């Protein structure tokens, strides 16, 4: 069995060693599977371990590589996906008890693309039920219970891509896929000390993935470095005729780290006197100074004064009420783990059709304002979350959060990354988010790569036995 030093390598480094025949895909898959058996149950990170499929894919990858057939940077690299992707022959529960036997007879486009790239699927990863589509106020709002944070299993890994965050952080997969409607990649990445990218809306096909909010959902990679996320995006990007919302845009062309030094970056300061942890503020301040020391022009700025969060909230709420209407009508909502799920649907009746259209009209203004903003600035940096991971044992009612930048960026469909930038209370990870203009993932990733070239936060491992 391979040791932790190998299992914690970045996906791109694993791919490089596999292609150089220094690491056997079969031995790598077997080693991850053994670690999953040992560690994953402590974290509630997995829903289904696809052992036989993984070993078959690993054997195929090994056979091809020995024969000299190379499929690309992820050939032979093991990964996991949030449990909302259709996978032929594997149950897809959407994290919800009433759907625990659900399955599909086809593969989601992103799963198919990873298959074609020679990836090795280790299993499906835990998530908040329906990705939070009916709202949630407890970390255990999932058919598999609260996903634990590898940095402190008494803490939550965040939602809704909970298992994806925990599994990457705990060295159970080479990389993972998550989904993000509002913070569901960025928050677990921040809390778990990993790197996560929420691409521009439409950048990646959503065919075969659970729909929570058709105009807000995005899928994206979660990994151990910005370079890894860039490699995964490179494999997954491209218009998909099976997803009418996917964009006809060329894949992001990677920028060299040196190019990031030419970017003009706006730092958005949060009011930590009102909400948040001062240790997070200190980590953010240090990260900004780190970027400046690396040669990036970072200046303080303010976002346009628009109701980003109110609009994002209303749009998600209205669309989710339609997406999950059947669960309410046939009473299966009563099987959900969160006690508030039963009232989510009727509460959405307060939203009128005119409210929804008005929200989408304000969204147009928000998009225009941010397009103007990103005509002046190349990127925004801000704390990914204003706090570190809360307890996995208590409800979230009293947790103070803040997410102006996240609300703005997800509403406008803009790309964002979270990279580890230090530690806060209790030695828990803190994330730095970088947001860019639409389809400007390359700038966001370049800043992430630059930051990770001058820091080693992303190389820290949780003290997990």
């Amino acid at each position, binding site marked *: 069995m391979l040791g932790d030093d190998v299992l914690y390598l970045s996906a791109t480094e694993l791919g490089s060693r596999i292609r150089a025949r220094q690491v056997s895909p079969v031995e790598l898959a077997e080693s991850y599977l053994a670690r999953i058996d040992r560690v994953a149950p402590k974290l509630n990170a997995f829903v289904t371990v696809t052992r036989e499929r993984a070993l078959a894919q690993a054997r195929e990858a090994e056979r091809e590589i020995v024969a000299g057939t190379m499929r690309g940077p992820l050939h032979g690299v093991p990964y996991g996906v949030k449990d909302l992707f259709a996978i032929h022959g594997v149950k897809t529960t959407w994290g919800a008890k009433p759907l625990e036997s659900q399955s599909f007879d086809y593969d989601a486009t992103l799963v198919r693309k990873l298959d074609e790239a020679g990836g090795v699927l280790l299993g499906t990863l835990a998530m908040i039920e329906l990705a939070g589509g009916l709202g*949630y106020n407890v970390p255990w709002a999932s058919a598999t219970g609260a996903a634990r944070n590898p940095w402190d299993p008494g803490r939550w890994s965040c939602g*809704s891509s909970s298992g994806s965050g925990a599994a990457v952080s705990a060295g159970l997969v080479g990389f993972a896929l998550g989904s993000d409607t509002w913070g569901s990649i960025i928050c677990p990445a921040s809390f778990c000390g990993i790197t996560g990218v929420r691409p521009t809306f439409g950048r990646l096909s959503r065919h075969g993935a659970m729909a929570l909010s058709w105009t807000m959902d995005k899928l994206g990679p979660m990994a151990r470095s910005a370079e890894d996320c860039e490699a995964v995006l490179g494999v997954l990007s491209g218009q998909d005729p099976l997803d009418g919302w996917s964009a006809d845009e060329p894949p992001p062309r990677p920028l060299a780290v040196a190019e990031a030094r030419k970017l003009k970056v706006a730092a958005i300061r949060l009011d930590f006197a009102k909400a948040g942890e001062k240790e997070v503020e200190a980590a953010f301040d240090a990260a900004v100074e780190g970027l400046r020391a690396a040669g990036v022009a970072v200046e303080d700025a303010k976002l346009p004064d628009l109701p980003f969060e109110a609009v994002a909230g209303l749009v998600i709420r209205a669309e989710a009420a339609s997406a999950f209407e059947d669960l309410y009508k046939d009473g299966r909502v009563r099987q959900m783990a969160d006690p*508030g799920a039963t009232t*989510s649907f009727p509460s959405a009746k*307060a939203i009128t059709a005119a409210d929804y259209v*008005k929200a989408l009209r304000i969204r147009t203004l928000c998009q225009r304002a941010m397009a103007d903003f990103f005509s002046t600035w190349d990127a925004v940096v801000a704390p990914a979350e204003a706090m570190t991971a809360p307890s996995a044992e208590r409800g979230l009612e009293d947790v103070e959060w803040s997410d102006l930048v996240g609300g703005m960026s997800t509403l406008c469909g803009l790309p964002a990354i979270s990279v580890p930038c230090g530690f806060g209370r209790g030695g828990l990870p803190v994330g730095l988010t970088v947001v860019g203009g639409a389809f400007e993932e390359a700038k966001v990733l370049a800043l992430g790569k630059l930051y990770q070239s001058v820091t080693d936060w992303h190389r820290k491992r949780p003290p997990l036995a």
Partner: protein
Amino acid sequence: MSDRPLEISRRGLGQMLLALPVASALAAEEKKAVEKPTPLAELIAGQEPGLSDEEQARLKKSITEGEKTLAVIRDFKLPPDVAPAFRFAPLKSRRS
């Protein structure tokens, strides 16, 4: 998180619907004394006889608080030429 008093947030949404809870000034308001349900909250709750008393109370609270967010949307002034941010495209038949 915004410090604007009536903005919804991931946490505020969590009461109703959300990908990730996040608190704001709205959360601070939740800690205050329970507000009297609005007429709309009473009306909608009245259409849900299958809910328990606790669920009825939660529903009324959710709608009452949600109406503040709705007010942000409804009170927002927009120029008439701003179209909603969605696209509709006629779908051609397979014969066309």
